């Protein structure tokens, strides 16, 4: 069966979650993504979790997942002879992705001018913290500062404490997923209009203008000086927030509270017949909310989260169990659907990874190869680019390439 992005060649100079995720999406749907790694390997190779908790170049689970279906060429771009290799790689590719600080590629003589003169219909997607021309263009960004500064972290947590972040590198992944749309749009423009261009993507901007409520809180302020604050305490409203139950927690949302459906879920209890719950602003009266939750909790506390969710599904109530990762690996729904994909690794045997992010009926996701070892494809790729055995040996001897 055809793969959607077959024939697209991506030269991936990037490091880190956002860039690796943008190119992973392309690779997973068929693009030929060639990672250019420094001789010591890119940064994700040194990010946990590691197999058995032991750090190592080829032991990072994070690297495994973010680099499926890619190839790796180890090349020291700072060594002068790298430029001739780079030129041939420009000839090879359709688009280049980089995550270096603004100006860094130019300083090596490998920047836009060289790329554009060599092959005018190749685009360069630059993923940087704040973009190429921001007053903060030289500033650094981490997961925490990305979400804190540009994302909607200020309202997450409670008023008497510091705001609190999301899990792991969720914000970087959000920005990376948006960057993938820029990447594919640039390829589209190149294919249809024969145009090569610079694409300036700031990780922060994807948070400021794109992601999770930041737009809503900003516009609410701009329209009406509406302030968005963290919650006063536990977030429970009139059927809003995380509630305890017999074996864990469930989450409800009152964003569109349907008491008729709730009645059905609770099997029409007498207390819910009281007309006071149907007053327009019932959910805004703190004493009523408290009473509501006191009535509801006994029902929840004798039931398990999956049973509660099943009842909620039957009644059409917005609800979800708080699953743990082991429960998710064992979950019938996700196993039946084939969400988990078994990967065969020549060192660690078989293990599972999250597979396709979505299902394309005519051009499906596939795992053609696991994440590459550092420089695994150096010789193969250089040969593809027209280098002879002697040239490759010479580059290797002079320490320009590895693998």
């Amino acid at each position: 069966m055809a793969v959607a992005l077959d024939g697209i060649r991506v030269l991936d100079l990037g490091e880190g979650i956002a860039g690796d995720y943008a190119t992973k999406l392309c690779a997973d749907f068929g693009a030929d993504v060639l990672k250019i790694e420094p001789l010591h390997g890119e940064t994700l190779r040194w990010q946990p979790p590691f197999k058995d908790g032991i750090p190592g170049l080829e032991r990072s689970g994070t690297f495994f997942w973010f680099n499926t279906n890619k190839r790796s060429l180890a090349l020291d771009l700072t060594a002068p002879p790298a430029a001739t290799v780079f030129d041939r790689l420009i000839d090879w590719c359709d688009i280049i992705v980089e995550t270096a600080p603004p100006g860094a590629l130019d300083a090596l003589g490998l920047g836009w001018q060289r790329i554009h003169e060599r092959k005018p219909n190749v685009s360069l997607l630059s993923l940087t913290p704040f973009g190429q021309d921001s007053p903060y263009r030289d500033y650094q960004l981490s997961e925490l500062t990305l979400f804190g500064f540009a994302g909607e972290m200020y309202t997450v947590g409670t008023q008497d404490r510091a705001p609190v972040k999301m899990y792991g590198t969720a914000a970087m992944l959000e920005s990376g997923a948006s960057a993938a749309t820029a990447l594919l749009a640039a390829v589209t423009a190149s294919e249809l209009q024969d145009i090569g261009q610079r694409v300036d993507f700031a990780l922060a901007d994807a948070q400021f203008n794109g992601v999770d409520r930041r737009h809503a809180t900003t516009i609410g302020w701009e329209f009406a000086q509406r302030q968005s604050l963290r919650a006063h305490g536990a977030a429970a409203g009139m059927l809003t927030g995380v509630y305890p139950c017999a074996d864990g927690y469930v989450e409800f949302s009152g964003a569109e509270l349907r008491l008729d459906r709730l009645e059905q879920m609770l099997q029409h209890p007498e207390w819910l017949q009281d007309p006071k719950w149907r007053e327009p602003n019932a959910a805004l009266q703190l004493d009523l909310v408290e009473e509501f939750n006191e009535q509801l909790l006994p029902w929840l506390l004798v039931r398990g989260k999956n049973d509660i969710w099943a009842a909620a599904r039957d009644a059409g109530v917005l609800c979800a169990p708080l699953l743990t990762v082991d429960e998710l690996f064992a979950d019938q729904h996700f196993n039946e659907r084939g969400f988990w994909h078994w990967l065969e690794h020549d060192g660690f045997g078989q293990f599972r990874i999250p597979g396709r992010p979505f299902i394309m009926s005519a051009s499906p996701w596939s795992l053609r190869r696991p994440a590459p070892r550092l420089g695994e494809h150096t010789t193969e790729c250089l040969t593809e680019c027209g280098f002879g055995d002697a040239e490759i040996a010479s580059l290797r001897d002079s320490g320009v390439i590895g693998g």
Partner: protein
Amino acid sequence: MSARKPLEGIRIIDLSVVWAGAFAATLLADLGAEVIKVENVHVWQPMTRGTVARPPHAAIAAGAGWATGYPHGTPGPRPWNHAPSFVQMFRNKYSVTIDLLTDDGREAFGRLVECSDALVENNAAGTLEKLQIGPDFLQQRRQDLIVLRMPAYGQTGPYREARALGVHLESVMGHTMLRGYPDLDPSYITPIYSGDYVAGAHGAFAVMAALRHRRRTGEGQLIEMAQAECAGGMLAQAFMDYSLNGRLQERIGNGSLEDDVPHGVYPARSHGTGADGGDRWIAITVLNDDHWRGLRSAMRNPEWAAGSELEHIEGRRAARHLIEQELSAWTSERDDYALFHVLQWHGVPAAPILAAPRVLNDPHVQARGLNQACTLADGVGPFRFNGPFYRFEHTPVDLYKPPVALGEDNHYVYGELLGYSAEEIEALETTGRIGLDFDHEIP
């Protein structure tokens, strides 16, 4: 020849609700596709153009979150064109009203399908089928149509019928149990909706991938995106840790997976408290020994930080409590932006935690032109309004059409695209089948 927008010439039907599908369509519209929202004046979709069509004054007066924030505090005669949590999803789009509950409406919709390239929807499972516009209908009207469906948990499996907002997906996928303060009960965890946006970005990517496939083969296709599965990448490290090592990770609050020290959010000089929005915080992340040396010199080399053992992560972990305490004392006497600049000057990734009111005044946000003056429907505004967030050198990606009002493009769509005569359009309007207002029966 001047460059066209990347997706110019592509027409996309937007049947999305709430955020995830709407964001996918927004990105495609930003890139130049003609995205047409198909809406029904007789059907209110909650959380799409507001919580309710006509928010009661009592709710606004009481300051209920979702009901507030309309321009200048008043919803106006057509609140659905101005709802602050949703209106930003309408930039660069078109809107046509079609009554899909009638045969005539379905026929009009069918004609629109015939002249469209793709359709995006994220309704509850089974919604299109109930409206008799499911995949069979769509394919019959246009063989090579690309259809993106974004159900919460997928079209198959035990959870396919479950209703969900982004917050529920995060709970099911394990995100909620893995974030928040480690020492507080999970009931203190704030609902977030990052899954909506992750799904939306993937949706736009998927449609572009399918468009490419169609260019090469002439073939359309059905894309099924379970939003929950799509959000899986946010949990990648937790999944891989369990998969490789059988290890269940725990909540670590503002810590990093690498257990860097210091790594967290520290109090800056404040103008108020969390209760009035006047609290200030600085996030500081020392990810390596260079960052530590930078932090130390930014603090002007205080005695407590002088020890050589602190130059290595093991030493900093051992002194975690001291570092946190002394660092907080240092930051709490300083302004957050001053800390931002001095720490970055010394090479330390640090940044203020920005509350929304401060975003529009940030020099970066202004220099990048992230917000543009924009007048909403009925002449409301202008306001600083968020536009597309990435820049293409030649093929323009910008805010080219203000957020669309309900039914704003009825005449264009019925007249120019579907070939209705002026009289036929007028008849639809006078009988109330199409229009600019939601049915008056709708609260």
